[in-house]
């Protein structure tokens, strides 16, 4: 419920504005709008207060000045609504971020079920390639990266998969391999600024990267998930957490595939 003090301030400020409109009186409108937001006043309440205040100003004005009062009041009202516009845009942004998070969670759940599926081991000889491809694709989408590679070097194998955003230009495989060499044992996040300071990348156009090792049950690094060029901004700690989670699930799934192969009757 809006305070009576606010109502009075609004009526007085609008009256001042309709008598002599300038930037100072408009600023008063903006400040009142800000105060309304802070006092949890709704836009509907503010509209009602404005119309009461306008009626008061019109009563005091002569017939000839009425049109000027209405025009001036419209500008004042717009100023007082600008704080609501800021808040409204914030809500819209938060709603779309929440929708994106829900999509990510659903995607992660689907991938988790796939990697945990017992039939994966028995299904086909190319299961490891399929796993790496899916993980690269999902990791790229979940983190907003442009390029992703996933590789697995264990049990005498060297398997790799790549995923590239459809709108992005192809990149040389050697470039991605060089990038893979930057991060090996620990999760590594390189911002654009870090990239330019990295001696091994001096001749590669600046971008950003996130790399996470795939680790076997005994702790040995057996592969790498690499994400390059985040479309908006830099890779975040949340991106890193998602990539680490994916890498852990992937390593476990691939080890299970190998375990199955080594024990399955030929």
């Amino acid at each position, binding site marked *: 419920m809006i305070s009576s003090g606010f109502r009075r301030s609004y009526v007085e400020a609008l009256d001042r504005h309709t008598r002599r409109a300038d*930037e*100072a009186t408009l*600023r008063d409108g903006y400040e009142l709008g*800000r105060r309304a937001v*802070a006092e949890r006043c709704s836009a509907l309440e503010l509209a009602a207060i404005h119309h009461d205040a306008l009626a008061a100003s019109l009563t005091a004005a002569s017939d000839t000045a009425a049109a000027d009062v209405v025009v001036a009041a419209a500008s004042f009202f*717009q100023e007082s609504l600008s704080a609501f516009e*800021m*808040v409204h845009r914030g809500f819209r942004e938060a709603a779309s971020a929440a929708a994106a998070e829900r999509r990510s969670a659903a995607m992660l759940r689907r991938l988790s079920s796939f990697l945990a599926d017992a039939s994966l081991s028995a299904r086909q000889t190319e299961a490891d390639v399929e796993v790496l491809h899916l993980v690269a694709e999902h990791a790229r989408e979940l983190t907003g990266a442009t390029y992703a590679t996933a590789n697995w070097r264990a049990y005498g194998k060297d398997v790799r998969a790549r995923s590239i955003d459809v709108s992005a230009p192809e990149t040389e495989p050697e470039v991605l391999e060089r990038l893979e060499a930057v991060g090996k044992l620990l999760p590594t996040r390189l911002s654009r600024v870090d990239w330019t300071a990295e001696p091994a990348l001096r001749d590669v156009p600046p971008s950003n990267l996130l790399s996470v090792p795939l680790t076997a049950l005994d702790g040995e690094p057996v592969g790498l998930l690499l994400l390059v060029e985040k479309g908006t901004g830099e890779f975040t700690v949340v991106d890193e957490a998602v990539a680490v989670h994916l890498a852990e699930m992937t390593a476990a799934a691939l080890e299970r595939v190998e375990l199955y192969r080594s024990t399955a009757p030929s």
Partner: protein
Amino acid sequence: MTDDIRILITSDEDMLPARSHARALALELGFTRTDATLIATAISEIARNIVVHVGKGEITMKPVQEEDRNGLVVVAQDAGPGIADLSAALEQGFASRGGLGLGLPGARRLMDEFEIQSERGRGTTITMTKWRLRDELELLRERRARLDGRAGEPGSDGSAS
């Protein structure tokens, strides 16, 4: 076209010339009254930020003209302590006003482009831009005016001596 406008910000009162210059420049560039209000509001938010957190700074605004759009660029600079956590400062809910998304996040949402650079102990620079797409009619009028102007130039009728 208008030159750069520079306004020193040391108190809430300095918000007034910043707002009125921004509004006038926005209208001169063809922005709607609503957009001019949003620009004035965004400027008020960053001016308030300077006054509350640093005490002193400067706001510069200038027009930019491209082939198919007009823009108003606002640069706010201060030599304060800098912002330790930029992403937190730009998130809704951070800082003042109980997480309503006013302040810097609010200003960011009202403009089309918003960039912030801050260095500990050396200050903060915010650059924000609002764009207005120019419609076909406007572009056509401008092309005609250019052609008319050229027709009036000496030698434009091919009779160079």
